[in-house]
């Protein structure tokens, strides 16, 4: 089957790469969603956007509990090495919990059940 595919695809690869135009720029300007205004928005934006756009925060709302957000901020500090001190982290968690968390449900467990971390 593989051999047949090659035959079907035909044209030589050398030609393909030689003729390619490789003038690829950076991604098109494409503004991420702004974070909601509120206490802690400035520090959250400044710290988190160093490595990723605010899309990540909005995308994961609003199903994480306040404890879920705390776990995410902890992961960024411990697993990803974000240089965020305790008091700044507390501000960020408070902002996320106020603006992007699910209403507290007694039945909703914290997501960290074992060593696995989602990517």
């Amino acid at each position: 089957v593989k051999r047949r595919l090659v035959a079907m695809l035909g044209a030589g690869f050398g030609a393909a790469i030689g003729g390619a135009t490789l003038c690829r720029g950076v991604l098109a300007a494409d503004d991420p969603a702004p974070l909601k205004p509120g206490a802690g928005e400035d520090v959250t934006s400044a710290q988190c956007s160093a490595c990723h756009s605010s899309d990540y925060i909005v995308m994961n709302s609003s199903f994480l509990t306040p404890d879920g957000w705390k776990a995410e901020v902890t992961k960024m500090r411990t697993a990803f090495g974000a240089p965020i001190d305790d008091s700044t982290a507390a501000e960020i968690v408070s902002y996320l919990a106020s603006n992007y968390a699910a209403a507290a449900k007694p039945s909703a467990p914290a997501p960290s059940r074992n060593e696995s971390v989602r990517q």
Partner: protein
Amino acid sequence: MRRRDMIAGAGTSLLVSPSIAAESTRIPAELPDGTRQIARFVNLPDKRRMLRLVDRPPNYAAPVNVFTDIVTPNDRFYVRYHLAGVPSAADMDDWSLSVAGDAVERPVRLKLSDLLDMPSNEVLAVCQCAGNRRGFCDPHVPGVQWTDGAMGSAVWRGPMLRDVLRRAGVKPEAMEVWFDGADKPVMQATPPYRKSLPIDKALDGDTIVAIAMNNAPLPLLNGYPARLVVPGWVGTYWMKHLTAIEVSSVPLRNYWMQTAYRVPAGLFPVQHPFQSQATETTVPITELVVNSLIADPLEGDEVDRSGFTISGVAWDRGGGINRVEVSIDGGHSWQDALLDRPLGRYSYRRFILQTNLMRPGTYQLISRATTNAGERQAERLKLNPGGYHNNVPRPVAVVVT
């Protein structure tokens, strides 16, 4: 009805003639509310109408109509980066690949021209993110909230990894092969994205260093100029912008192997366990699970009561699809779909089902695939902290008029 399958009559292969299907414009309703706020279809360099989930690092899914084809066009192939330090094409101008490690005889550095001079292999293979369909998990699991478009299939071409490794000479004590790419973290303290394979999978003839994708150079956002292709295994091992290979006598110990991309031990049985990375409680996620997808019609489409065609793709870890069943009544009854000829162990298998006269109304279409080994898609989500391997059959609601 919509004009689809305009490939009829074309003299060229099915593989290189994309069918014309209606573009999906819907943001799936099952996604979290926040994801639905930010997700939108955008154009990128070399990419057309992709569902933007995150711009930095770039994470873009293909719309479901793309999977009316067995081969995913390069400009519709999904994009997934963990770290925002994405190289530019100019950064890759002096690209080379080092092959070293404690289990090689002599470290070597290869240029693109060296790879071009080596015998090549071609594999038509599905590359699927471990977290494909995470956004449909109920309850939701944090991470990139993928739709079912965090996957694609391409004809990958390049030297076999084992031939690349032999240029450096593999010692008998080799246990794993480690991989690094040119994409980098923003912060120095962030673990660089490095992954490993067990030596057996690395030496498999279908594991290749791809320098061509669908007979063209790889798009930058898919790993130009060379990426690892690991057929049957989830995308996390398919290292993009591959720059360094180390053959090692010990397991790779880092965040990306030991913490991320792991599943509870025993939850997803595999043919070839990754023993050197297993612990008593968790194992690395490796082999794909059996899955299928209806690509046509699309959610919300109006279809003809006198009969319409349901088509889609099914795939698995490489054992082969034996059967795809389709339900038009939300899973109460099932019919066997027709299967197109298999195009290789690791490719999509296309299925179609032609419906008969139906009463007008709303219908739930569902597909479910079974492998040659008898594995069928899960009826309920096997909950796991990463939200991986979501292969629960997914209904597509259509209106028969």
